[in-house]
């Protein structure tokens, strides 16, 4: 029985391939693959169907299948192309076998279905595993990348350090940020830390809570925090949500924050030569001529 | 790593002993310094509760593992008077001893999972778990 069915399929592979290609081509116009050129689509289909047949012939998974799926993953073909293709193949092959058989009773029918599933399912599983494996890999890489750009600490002057926050802050990131912040304060011996939230898109109660906690921890280790980069819409949400930021100083821009950081460490910015002086000098020199 | 160890809490000094052992175990499991401090502090709070309210009891540590991460489970047990106002003790600032009232809710915040079983007159059992990030 097993061999007989296999013979039918292998023996008439040309017909089956033709039917399969027709079916799959019907899907192309309306579907995901619409942007892919006809030639590429054709050749990929041919290769796909060859890979399927090899795996049936050898009754098992092959390296060809791995190579093929790997290449499609790299080219960015959607997984649905492969699963749709396999489902069409299942339908075509079942139809074809049933057409070729003389006597069809329910036992035979069930046997055919079981057999076909036995060919098709391992291939689908393999393809899905390859794809999801590659997705998981990408996700974990991105998580690491995100953590790396998480929270740099920039010592701009003796005793003054800036921490720009960028992107969405969740609980896990908030903890990491707090650890970086406190370690950095100790390392750079920072008396004042400016936390810049210009790059934080949304400040909700949770984010505000984390920022407040970080500021309080900074105070406990003996330094001071100034929150800078509060945009108008963020000021509005903070007040509307009833978040109390009254306990530590806030400034709208990094520049203003830096100025008050200088004041806190008993320093000021002084121009080496004022503009008016320059102009006066210029007029003087003109008068002399 | 599969082991369990317990510390009996009878004297005040046992509080320090318990948190030192807990910190050691946390370090062996692979927790960073910050989480070590969190775990040790949680143990200190739990041990003090036993010492203050039940007199005697014990704290057990267990390295645990689920599908994708490792963790440390702390179980604090005593046969003391139990806690009558279970919902009240979990509120910040509630204290019967003149402390800061940060003990149990604090432990809950320091750890990841927290479960408390207590019956009036039958003692208290608290289970708290910290997962390795």
């Amino acid at each position, binding site marked *: 029985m097993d061999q007989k069915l296999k013979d039918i399929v292998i023996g008439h592979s040309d017909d089956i391939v033709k039917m399969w290609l027709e079916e799959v081509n019907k899907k192309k116009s309306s579907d995901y693959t619409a942007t892919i050129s006809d030639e590429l689509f054709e050749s990929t289909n041919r290769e796909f169907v060859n890979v399927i047949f090899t795996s049936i012939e050898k009754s098992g998974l092959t390296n060809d299948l791995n190579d093929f799926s790997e290449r499609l993953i790299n080219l960015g073909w959607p997984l649905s192309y492969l699963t749709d293709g396999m489902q069409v193949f299942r339908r075509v092959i079942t139809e074809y076998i049933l057409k070729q058989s003389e006597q069809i009773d329910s036992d035979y029918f069930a046997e055919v279905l079981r057999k076909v599933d036995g060919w098709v399912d391992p291939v689908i599983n393999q393809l899905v595993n390859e794809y999801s494996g590659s997705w998981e890999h990408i996700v974990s890489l991105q998580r690491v990348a995100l953590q790396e750009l998480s929270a740099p600490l920039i010592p701009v002057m003796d005793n003054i350090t800036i921490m720009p926050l960028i992107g969405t802050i969740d609980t896990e990131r908030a903890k990491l940020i*707090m*650890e970086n912040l*406190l*370690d950095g*304060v*100790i390392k750079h*011996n*920072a*008396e004042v830390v400016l936390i810049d939230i210009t790059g934080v898109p949304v400040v909700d109660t949770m984010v505000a809570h984390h920022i407040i*906690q970080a500021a*309080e*921890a*900074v*105070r*406990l*280790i*003996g*330094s001071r925090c100034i929150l800078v980069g509060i945009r108008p819409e963020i000021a509005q949400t903070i007040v509307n949500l009833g978040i109390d930021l009254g*306990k530590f100083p806030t400034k709208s821009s990094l520049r203003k924050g830096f100025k008050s950081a200088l004041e806190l460490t008993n320093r000021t910015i002084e121009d080496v030569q004022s503009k008016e002086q320059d102009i006066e000098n210029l007029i003087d020199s003109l008068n002399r001529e | 790593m599969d082991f369990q160890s317990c510390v009996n809490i009878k004297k*005040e*000094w046992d*509080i*320090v002993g318990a*948190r*030192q052992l807990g*910190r050691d175990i946390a370090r062996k499991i692979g927790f960073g*310094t*910050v989480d*070590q*401090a*969190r775990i*040790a*502090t949680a143990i*200190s*709070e739990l041990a*003090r509760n036993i010492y203050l309210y039940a007199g005697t009891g014990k704290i057990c540590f267990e390295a645990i593992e689920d599908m994708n991460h490792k963790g440390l489970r702390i179980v604090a047990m005593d046969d003391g008077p139990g806690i009558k106002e279970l919902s009240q003790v979990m509120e*910040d600032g509630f204290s019967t001893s003149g*402390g*800061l009232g*940060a*003990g149990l*809710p*604090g432990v809950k*915040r*320091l750890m990841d999972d927290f479960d408390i079983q207590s019956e009036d007159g039958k003692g208290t059992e608290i289970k708290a778990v910290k997962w390795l990030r």
Partner: protein
Amino acid sequence: MRIPILKLHNYLLISIQIDLDDQTAIQFQEDLLSKIHESGATGVVIDLTSVDIIDSFIAKVLGDVVTMSDLMGAKVVLTGIQPAVAMTLIDLGIHMQDVPTALDLEQGLIKLRQELEE
């Protein structure tokens, strides 16, 4: 176990270098207050660089010591609280809002001098 208290001009310097148990903490509270009384010190720096656990009890004792010393006319600054300890305190919900802090002993002394001059 007793924690040594050093005197330097008008200041008292304390560096806590052991794992504090409750009894030691309370003993320290008493020792410090009587030392302030004896010496008439106006400033105190308590350095916590080597302390790796502060639980709610120790936090309360430290907070109380600050308030009590204040009542006796001596300003207290806590210095060198470790990042891990600070984070744990915040998680516990202990903010020690009225307690002055500084990064290290040196800055603690500078802070004391500034506050006492004002």
